[in-house]
């Protein structure tokens, strides 16, 4: 008896291919959504309603797909559409902020805006020179205070105290400190300085201390992560050459993680440079330029923006415009810091990795 081993013929076209939406399908639906939004906007709907209409039209894609392609593809399309919508939703505030700040802030930008303080200025004119100086000095001093403390603490945690009880406590406290509200940091700095200088003290360096309280935990955490990324093999290679531990840390571990550490520093600066509340408490603000961190009030960009908006004077437009201008400058500084962080991690990372 012979058995035939010929398999039943397979309809390749049915097995491997199936009905599919045209490749331009998703784009077409998106275009329809945009068109729908435009039409409804023209017809008098507000922006929110128009966006909602666009979204509803876009959700038509999975429906179309279920009709043509079947369930599996339709589920894929549905999830893709949902994820993309979430993305757009998340980007919306970002672009909205950027747009508002740029459109409202850019009109006051001029050389004068950057080179004049607000001393003896009423109404039009004046600038943010004093606030820019204050922000740079206060944040700079905060960085000078926090960078060594943060990095040394991280080195201690990773290289010297791995796993002991003290390190667990430090790590716990650092985590708690990460969540400290900035106003509490401001009050802490104020209370501290009152001990030395008495009630009502106003000092730039107090603001630096407050910002350090916010910066140090971020720095410790980011540096710690970077140090942990350095493979143990490198430390061992160094020890095996008869290099003492501290030299190994200074010359092998730190250089290897330099890019990440510097990126962390830059981002932590970006994180605190816009803090308002602590500076309001301990530094206050002023209309004149003050280069001395240890003597009296200093202006800073966030507090300047806050104060200009709060007490705009009469007529208010000029002051409010300046507030937007200061906000824009602050935003640009933060973006520059992020850009620097990118460049640093690009240029300082160990090269030649496979």
């Amino acid at each position, binding site marked *: 008896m012979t058995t035939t081993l010929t398999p039943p013929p397979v309809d390749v076209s049915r097995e491997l291919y199936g009905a599919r939406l045209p490749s331009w399908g998703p784009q077409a639906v998106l275009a329809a959504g945009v068109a729908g939004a435009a039409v409804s906007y023209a017809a008098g709907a507000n922006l929110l309603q128009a966006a909602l209409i666009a979204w509803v039209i876009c959700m038509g894609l999975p429906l179309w797909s279920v009709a043509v392609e079947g369930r599996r593809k339709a589920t894929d399309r549905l999830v893709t559409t949902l994820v993309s919508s979430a993305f757009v939703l998340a980007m919306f505030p970002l672009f909205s902020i950027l747009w508002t700040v740029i459109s409202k802030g850019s009109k006051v930008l001029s050389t004068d805006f950057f080179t004049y303080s607000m001393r003896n200025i009423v109404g039009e004119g004046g600038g943010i020179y004093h606030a820019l100086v204050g922000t740079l000095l206060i944040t700079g001093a905060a960085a000078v205070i926090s960078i060594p403390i943060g990095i040394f603490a991280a080195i201690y945690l990773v290289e010297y105290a791995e796993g002991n009880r003290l390190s667990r406590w430090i790590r716990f406290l650092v985590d708690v400190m990460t969540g400290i509200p900035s106003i509490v940091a401001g009050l802490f700095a104020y209370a501290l300085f009152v001990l030395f200088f008495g009630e009502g003290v106003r000092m730039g360096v107090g603001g630096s201390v407050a910002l350090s309280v916010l910066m140090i935990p971020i720095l410790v955490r980011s540096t710690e992560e970077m140090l942990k990324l350095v493979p143990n*093999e490198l430390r061992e*290679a*160094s*020890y095996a*050459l008869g290099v003492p531990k501290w*030299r*190994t840390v200074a010359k092998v571990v730190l250089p*290897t993680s330099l890019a990440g550490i510097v990126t962390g520093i830059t981002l932590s600066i970006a994180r605190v440079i816009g803090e308002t509340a602590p500076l309001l408490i301990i530094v206050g603000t002023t209309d004149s330029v003050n280069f001395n961190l240890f003597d009296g009030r200093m202006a800073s960009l966030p507090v300047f923006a806050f104060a200009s908006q709060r007490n705009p004077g009469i007529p208010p437009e000029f002051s409010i415009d300046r507030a937007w201008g200061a906000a824009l400058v602050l935003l640009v500084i933060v973006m520059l810091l992020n850009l620097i962080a990118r460049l640093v991690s690009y240029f300082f990372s*160990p090269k*030649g990795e496979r």
Partner: protein
Amino acid sequence: MAKSIDVSDLNIFYGDFLAVEDVTIPIAAKSVTAFIGPSGCGKSTFLRSLNRMHEVIRGARVEGKVLIDGQDLYGADMDPVNVRRMIGMVFQRPNPFPTMSIYDNVLAGQKLNSKRMKKTEADDIVERSLRSAGLWAEVKERLDRPGSGLSGGQQQRLCIARAISVEPEILLMDEPCSALDPISTSVIEDLIHELKSQYTIVIVTHNMQQAARVSDETAFFNLSGVGKPGRLIEHGRTEAIFSNPTDPATEAYIQGRFG
């Protein structure tokens, strides 16, 4: 000035886990000793305990005695940093410093310890070390390129060059040729032959022919079972171990009839 090593009753622990039990072995100065044995039997662990690299791992410790030219390696006044300057090591996995160029990697021992050198002297050391490790021809055009940009086998030879550039008195090599082709392997074996006149060399290898070719003495390690500590089964002149081993396990392992 090569030094001898005398190990007696050495137990090596990772935390509570006894990894290697009760090793007693003399290692003569200016000799090559090969450690062979199945994977996981504690060859690397034992090797690392000979230059106090073992204690770098948290919770790791040893019990027993290791004498280097009669001096207690684990004595209270022995500085592990000085020990490691005297006893160099090549690791099982290549580990060049990624932030350093090939040139700096070879000189890492000197540079990391901030030793001052004249440029010509430094160039000389680099060339000599790289030649010995059989890497010179491949990298002489790109000494300033990062060391991590080399192939795996080249990195291993770079690490060998790095270890010998500080001229240790004892050289521990953990499977230095496991990632190398036959040609580079024979370069390394030539190097071992050459270094033998000045250094004491201990090499871990899974390659029986290599052990037979390069070593004067061979030590066979084995595990009595899963989770049990590794033990030194026997050691002796390489010819003797390979021609008529006393322990049947050694014979089985050498002839490839293991497990």
